[in-house]
């Protein structure tokens, strides 16, 4: 099976510090992949390289067969990869509907329409409504994003990424900053929305092991810039050494 997203021997150095030391990873369609590892293992750097934000110092990143090393977020969004951030990242002054509309407008290539009426663009608002519905935000379309509760802000952030109708979505700690009670609601909504919208793969960086082991098809464990383990949750859980290094606890 050909990989949707592929990293081949990716290296990234900051001065003398090597953040990624030859990471090779192939992600086919249909997988929910979690990237785990202790602080400083290179998780964020890997995601930044995979999303074209950082150019790797060596190696290549291919998305749907195209070299996307360092192409930047806009190009990647056009190709079909979206990203949501660790910190809640919304447009505070825009409404929920407008926040999603920004992504829809970009996806439809209408951002440079200087004189078109946005309010009268049915296609945009229909798409906004259907995405908002999937994320349970249908009732708050007119609400300024900054007034949403934290869990909903997170969902809005992810919803605007989903509005691009991406094939792959990268989530940086989707449940960070969300209360324990809200965590599973956020994940359920997210996984269901991905299925409904035809997102082929989800890649997440996550610290919360309940979430990692509860939702992943595959776990990639990084340690000191290298892939320490890569496999289904059961195979990682069976490996005490990996569990101790990466998760910071031995198997119970």
């Amino acid at each position, binding site marked *: 099976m050909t990989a949707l997203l592929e990293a081949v021997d990716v290296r990234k150095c900051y001065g003398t510090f090597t953040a990624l030391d030859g990471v090779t990873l192939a992600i086919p369609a249909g997988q929910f992949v979690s990237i785990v590892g202790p602080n400083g293992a290179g998780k964020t750097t890997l995601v930044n390289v995979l*999303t074209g934000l950082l150019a790797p110092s060596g190696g290549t990143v291919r998305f749907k067969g195209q070299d996307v090393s360092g192409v930047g*977020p806009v190009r990647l969004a056009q190709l079909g990869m*979206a990203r949501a951030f660790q910190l809640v990242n919304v447009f*505070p002054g825009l409404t929920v509907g407008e926040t999603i509309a920004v992504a829809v407008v970009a996806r439809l290539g209408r951002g*440079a329409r*200087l004189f*078109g009426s946005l309010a009268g663009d049915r296609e945009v608002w229909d798409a906004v409504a259907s995405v908002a519905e999937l994320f349970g935000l249908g009732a708050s379309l007119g609400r300024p994003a900054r007034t949403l509760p934290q869990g909903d802000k997170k969902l809005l952030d992810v919803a605007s990424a989903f509005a*691009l109708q991406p094939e792959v979505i990268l989530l940086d700690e989707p449940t960070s900053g969300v209360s324990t009670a809200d965590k599973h609601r956020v994940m359920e909504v997210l996984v269901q929305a991905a299925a409904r919208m035809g997102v082929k793969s989800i890649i997440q960086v996550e610290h919360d092991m309940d979430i990692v082991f509860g939702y992943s098809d595959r776990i990639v464990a990084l340690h000191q810039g290298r892939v320490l383990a890569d496999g289904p949750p059961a195979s990682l859980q069976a490996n005490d050494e990996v569990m101790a290094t990466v998760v910071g606890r031995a198997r119970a």
Partner: protein
Amino acid sequence: MIARAAGIAAVIALLSAPLVATPYQLTLLLPAFAYGIALLGLNLLFGTTGLLSFGHALFVALGAYTAAWLTTRAGVLSLEVIVLAAAGVAAVVAVPVGLLCVRYVKIYFGMLTLAFGMLFYSFLYKFYALTGGDEGIRVLRPTVLGLPFAGLDKVEFLTGPFYYYVLALLAVAALVMRRIVRSPFGLSLRAIRENADKAAFVGVRVRRYRFYAFVIAAVFGGVGGALLAVPTGLADPLLAYWTHSGNLVFMLLLGGFHHFLGPIVGAIVFIFLQDTVMSLTSYWRFVFGGLLAVVVIFFPGGLLGLLPSERTA
């Protein structure tokens, strides 16, 4: 409803002003309208896109010198041609300047626009043969819609046909800008203002749209500048001086940059306030400095920020 009624009342007041106001008051409204057009552009950059330019006077001066050069040196008196040429010249200059400036944001963007404004000021000052140096170039009385209005004296011309012409252009400029702000492009600009990194990740072409906004702002600045120079009859280097850019920012803060009509309200209030204060004291700059401080500290939303309404720019 109240806002709509107030708007209609304001339009009626401006339309009937030549019948009731003194010629002096009318000649104060002319620069206010011209500034209103220039500020609609500046506010697309600041209020909508979040980029504060300290060099907008560059484009106002370009428009004024276009009017001066066309009427005095080229013998072109048609105001329609002058306005279109001013828009074109501003756009042509805004392309290279904008390409450089939009690579930066915040204070760096502001400083770079300031630098280009000062460069142009020096150019106007030193290239005497082309620009008339510190004396500037006279702006001759233009024809309006092909009509010279030879029977009217200067004040009658300015407070009659020219007044309505500028008012009409202000209305057109406001409608065009309203359309832009409410377009998909306008939404993209607001997203850039709120969070440029996030905008890029949902596919907004941040730098390109900032550049478009810069050029559009410049065009409005150029048109405003051409209209500003007709009543004064002169284009001089001070139009490009940084204090003039500062005044433009002041007008915007005074009117309220969160509000679509803030630029126009700010321009009118500024001009009348300046006239009143200058007639009372020679320390008018002192008074205005204090006023600016009061606005920024106590009324950051400007005059229209006092209205209970959502942000519309």
